[in-house]
């Protein structure tokens, strides 16, 4: 199985290198979290209602809120990058955001989702159900048409419907961050959604060194060296041939294929 790296689409190969000074990075990391919390809350509680006040269809409103989220996350990524909290390289960005596309990715870090949302236009995400219980997020996730990860049958139904209307959906088959030093455990939910409704499945490979904001490390522990996020887009996967088998078999086969794509990514810290 070959990976295809579309080097013509490399994005944001950062800025001039900054010296990695631990102390400064602690400050910029802290500021990044602060920004996320404060600006995120403002946007969630004030920004979304303002956008909703603009007349338009549900679809138009959804696009506006998604755009707001994407630009906010893009700005946050830019901030983290410019201040040296992280560095990143995301190749193949232009391959994402297609009609009926299911974007899957492994999940080593808390900010995987930030990087994906920042660069994939007009996409929905499957996110933790807790977001709907969070007052600063509930309006945003609801209007943006995001999907809660549980209950499973609702998630599959909503995700399939969304892909069916031609939107783009981001899912983490692991459902939660990867446990370091172990291969990723891929739940069959993403494969099942792909079998039902995806026009194409596009894998994104996320590599971060050193481990950053992982399940193993508390978020406030700033790594000794600057974490570098390397994201690349793999070959499209066509779900059509898998649909010849009965759905439970098809989703198992496809999930096994997903796992094989990511198998070489077991981290040894």
């Amino acid at each position, binding site marked *: 199985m070959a990976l295809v790296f579309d080097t013509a689409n490399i994005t944001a190969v950062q800025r001039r290198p900054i010296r990695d000074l631990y102390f400064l990075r602690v400050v910029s990391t802290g500021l990044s979290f602060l920004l996320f919390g404060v600006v995120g809350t403002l946007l969630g509680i004030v920004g979304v209602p303002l956008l909703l006040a603009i007349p338009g269809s549900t679809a138009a409103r959804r696009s506006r809120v998604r755009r707001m989220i994407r630009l906010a996350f893009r700005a946050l990524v830019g901030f983290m990058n410019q201040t040296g909290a992280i560095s990143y390289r995301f190749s193949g960005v232009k391959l994402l955001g297609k009609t009926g596309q299911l974007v899957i990715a492994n999940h080593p870090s808390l900010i995987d989702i930030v990087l994906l949302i920042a660069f994939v236009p007009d996409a929905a995400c499957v996110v933790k159900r807790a977001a709907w219980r969070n007052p600063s997020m509930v309006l945003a996730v609801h209007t943006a048409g995001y999907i809660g990860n549980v*209950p*499973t*049958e609702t998630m*599959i139904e909503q995700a399939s419907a969304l892909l069916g209307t031609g939107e783009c959906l981001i899912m983490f088959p692991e459902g939660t961050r990867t446990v370091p030093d172990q291969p990723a455990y891929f*739940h*069959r*939910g993403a494969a*099942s959604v792909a079998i039902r409704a995806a026009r194409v499945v596009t894998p994104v490979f996320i590599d971060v060194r050193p481990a950053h904001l992982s399940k193993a490390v508390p978020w406030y522990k700033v790594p000794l060296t600057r974490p570098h996020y390397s994201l690349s887009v793999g070959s499209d996967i066509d779900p059509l041939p898998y649909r010849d088998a*009965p*759905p*439970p*078999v098809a*989703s198992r086969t496809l999930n096994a294929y997903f796992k094989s794509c990511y198998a070489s990514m077991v981290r040894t810290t």
Partner: protein
Amino acid sequence: MYDTDKIFNELRATLAELFELDPARITLDARLSEDLEIDSIDAIDLMDRLRRQTGRKISIEGFRSVRTVRDLVQAINALVNEG
């Protein structure tokens, strides 16, 4: 009255096909999760198939307490006999 034997036979064929199971393993006492390895995502696919076969709207609620094949037969029986 829909014959529960008929339901069982059809269900066994459906389960064998959907999950590529040896029909001999599908007994009334077989537990869906432990014996037949049917998990929650499989249950959704199964509900979809049953919905198509029975023409009835099936919600996952009616099947929450289903543990064995017998439970499933009874749930389907209740479903096709209501209304």
